[in-house]
């Protein structure tokens, strides 16, 4: 296990080292300053503004900003839905797949436009290359960019001194796309191809195996999508088993790159934040709070998976590490990833809103699966999604400032702006929408016959599958206990299990959309409310937000909200499973 801890330590070290580098670069990009890519991308950027008929300098207040964002997302949704429903007639369809049915297309469109990338379809068995590229890859790019836009607007609200302007949505969107997401995707994508991730337009090749059997090898333009799937905290795999599939994640190097890509931008944005507010310590203190929770999760999950499951112990199988074998719970895990890299990925993908997987979460131990669920339960503020993670964390910061202010008996202030009743009302709503959506939908799905039809496993694992499904969708994560609706395999047209189940499709789709856009509108409203306020100079009575004390207060608030909301539900699923050796 020492080997496992060493991997974690070096990985975290790399994340810390890259945070200021990328963070500084992004701060320059978002301020519209010149960067080394400007000579190449500048003309394309200006041409885009011309095509869109927008003035990048034109300031929008929170309502105009929100309107642009929502309308853009609505039309993205319609475009994706139409592509999925008509894919049978499009080019780049070597396997001759049919158009998707209405219910799963509804779910998929909602899923990708909300940056969730929950998948009730099987990639290689149902989607054409055109749908993967022009439909899904596009959303893989624009949704994290939208997340960044919301974050930027929020930050400008916090620091704004000259009236209600929060910046320009179209300029923020275009810059995030061209200067941040595109160059990183090209680099990561090409590295992935060089290691064996497929990138071709030809259809499946049929091999005759050594034993003389036929084996079809699914192909496709995968690397270009996988790069942005990881970088944009999207997570929707090109293939059904996501990054467990060797064509999506072939070796130890690609696993490292893909894992790093998950957390790279969300971590660096904390530095960008410090730069934008002019106080680097503020960024680092948020980073520190995130890192502390992240490390705590990792300390739980690796030993839990190394221990093995009750079923394996009951079968009398060895789970101890021996020379040349990792030991532990290898069910649903790949040899090249082993225990540590699988568990580290499971944690990273759920504290952020990525949701890609390199192992089967449904087969994790009880305690091991409590970690991803807790990551989801904290509303993904530990690095979190691209943009979404930090803006959600800033809501918790405002809440912590408010609680801290109450404790010392002063008017709460954050960076010189008074936090008053209106902001706290909006902040509380923004924080509570997601947990509320989880509990209501999971409750509906567990209490109705239509809902329980989706369950695969018996006993508490069946409850865990349901809870995980709605935790994941409401938090716009997208990882799954894949047994949920996945019990009739393979996911293929004409197969009842293939396209999920209408009830699950619709409830999930509605949840994903609501839990993405309602908080966004509330956050922009908070930004608008803060933007107009005067900045008062810090005095001796001002509570500082860049000290270890505040970091601990912030962690406490995050855990308090998450634990109070989800502890009873977690008790019924993963915790009961980790406390019993009973089999179901």
């Amino acid at each position, binding site marked *: 296990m020492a080997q496992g801890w060493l991997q974690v330590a070096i990985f975290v070290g790399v994340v810390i080292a890259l945070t200021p580098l990328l963070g500084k670069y992004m701060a320059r990009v978002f301020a519209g300053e010149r960067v080394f890519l400007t000579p190449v991308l500048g003309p394309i950027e200006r041409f885009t503004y011309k095509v869109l008929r927008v003035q990048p300098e034109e300031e929008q207040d929170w309502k105009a900003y929100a309107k642009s964002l929502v309308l853009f997302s609505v039309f993205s949704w319609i475009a994706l839905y139409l592509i999925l429903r008509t894919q049978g007639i499009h080019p780049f369809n070597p396997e001759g797949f049919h158009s998707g049915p209405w219910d799963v297309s509804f779910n998929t469109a909602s899923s990708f436009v909300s940056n969730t990338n929950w998948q009730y379809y099987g990639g290689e068995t149902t989607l054409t290359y055109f749908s993967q590229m022009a439909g899904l890859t596009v959303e893989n790019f*624009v949704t994290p960019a939208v997340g960044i836009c919301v974050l930027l607007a929020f930050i400008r609200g916090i620091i704004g001194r000259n009236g209600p302007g929060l910046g320009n949505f179209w300029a923020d969107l275009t810059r995030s796309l061209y200067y941040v997401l595109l160059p990183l995707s090209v680099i990561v994508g090409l590295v992935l191809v060089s290691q064996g991730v497929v990138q071709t337009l030809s259809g499946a090749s049929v091999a005759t195996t050594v034993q003389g059997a036929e084996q079809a090898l699914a192909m496709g333009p995968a690397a270009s999508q996988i790069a942005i799937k990881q970088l944009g905290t999207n997570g929707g795999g090109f293939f059904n088993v996501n990054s467990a599939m060797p064509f999506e994640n072939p070796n130890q190097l690609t*696993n490292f790159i893909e894992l790093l890509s998950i957390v790279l931008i969300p971590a660096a944005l904390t530095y960008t934040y410090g730069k934008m507010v002019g106080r680097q310590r503020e960024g680092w203190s948020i980073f520190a709070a995130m890192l502390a929770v992240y490390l705590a999760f990792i300390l739980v999950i690796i030993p839990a998976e190394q221990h093995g499951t009750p079923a394996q112990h009951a079968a009398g199988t060895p789970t101890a590490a021996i020379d040349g074998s990792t030991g532990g719970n290898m069910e649903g895990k*790949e040899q090249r990833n082993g225990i540590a890299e699988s568990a580290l990925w499971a944690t990273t993908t759920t504290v952020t809103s990525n949701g890609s997987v390199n192992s089967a979460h449904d087969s994790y131990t009880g305690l091991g699966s409590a970690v991803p669920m807790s990551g989801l339960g904290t509303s993904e503020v530990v690095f979190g999604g691209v943009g979404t993670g930090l803006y959600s964390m800033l809501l918790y910061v405002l809440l912590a400032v408010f609680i801290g202010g109450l404790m010392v008996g002063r008017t709460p202030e954050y960076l010189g702006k008074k936090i008053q009743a209106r902001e706290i009302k909006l902040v509380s709503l923004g924080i509570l929408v997601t947990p509320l959506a989880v509990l209501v939908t999971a409750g509906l799905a567990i209490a109705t016959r239509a809902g329980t039809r989706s369950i695969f496993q*018996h006993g508490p694992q069946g409850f865990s599958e349901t809870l995980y499904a709605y935790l994941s969708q409401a938090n716009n994560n997208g990882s799954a206990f894949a*047994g949920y609706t*996945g019990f009739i395999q393979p*996911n293929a047209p004409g197969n009842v299990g293939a396209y999920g189940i209408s009830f699950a499709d619709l409830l999930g789709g509605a949840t994903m959309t609501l839990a993405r856009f309602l908080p966004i509108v509330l956050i922009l409203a908070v930004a608008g409310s803060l933007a107009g306020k005067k900045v008062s100079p810090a005095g001796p009575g001002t509570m500082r937000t860049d000290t270890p004390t505040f970091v601990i207060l912030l962690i406490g608030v995050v855990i308090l909200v998450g634990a109070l909301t989800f502890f009873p539900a977690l008790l019924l699923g993963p915790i009961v499973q980790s406390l019993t050796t009973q089999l179901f």
Partner: protein
Amino acid sequence: MRRTVITSILAVIAFTLVFGLAYPLAMTGISQVVFHGKANGSKITVNGKLVGSSLIGQSFSRPVIGRNGKPKLDEEGEEVLAPDPRYFQPRPSQSGYSGNATFFSNSGPNSVEEREAVREALAAYVGLEKPFDKSLTREGVPVDAITMSGSGVDPEISEANALIQAHRIAAVRKLPLSRVEGLISDHTSSRFLGVFGEPGVNVLQLNLALDEEAPIK
């Protein structure tokens, strides 16, 4: 409102062209030229025939022949398969090593089915290897040999797993054990930077090397 609607529609079209067509097609073009073999699935051909991909595991089982000289069928009319003792065996697969429809086993930690599946796999493994490696105990069976992989097409097995199977291969193929172990180490991947991930032995490549070293008559 009207202006924002128009801009939104234009933005969807523009970004679809850039990120949905230009970007993936350009990446495909570059990849096809610079990394041709890798971009097309790291295929392996033997004597001009495609036998698989070095990244995708395949089954090394063969049909069991019944007393009547025909392949034995199970209740569903499918051929009963058994591991071919002349080859290294890959990890158990829930999908029958399907390379174009991957899925997880989704066996839960407290499930009776998981207990039964693992128990059977353990018995089968010991049954196959014990005659050739007398020192093998249940405690010595590497866990990757009896659990389903994530993808169902895991191309690799652990080093411990390969070294146990080496006894059988050496006996069946009439090769010195040290030669078989040498082939194993030739086909073992290493950790990235010596730190990340786990080493694994590529079963397909190893078996192909074995066929070259000691062809089956």
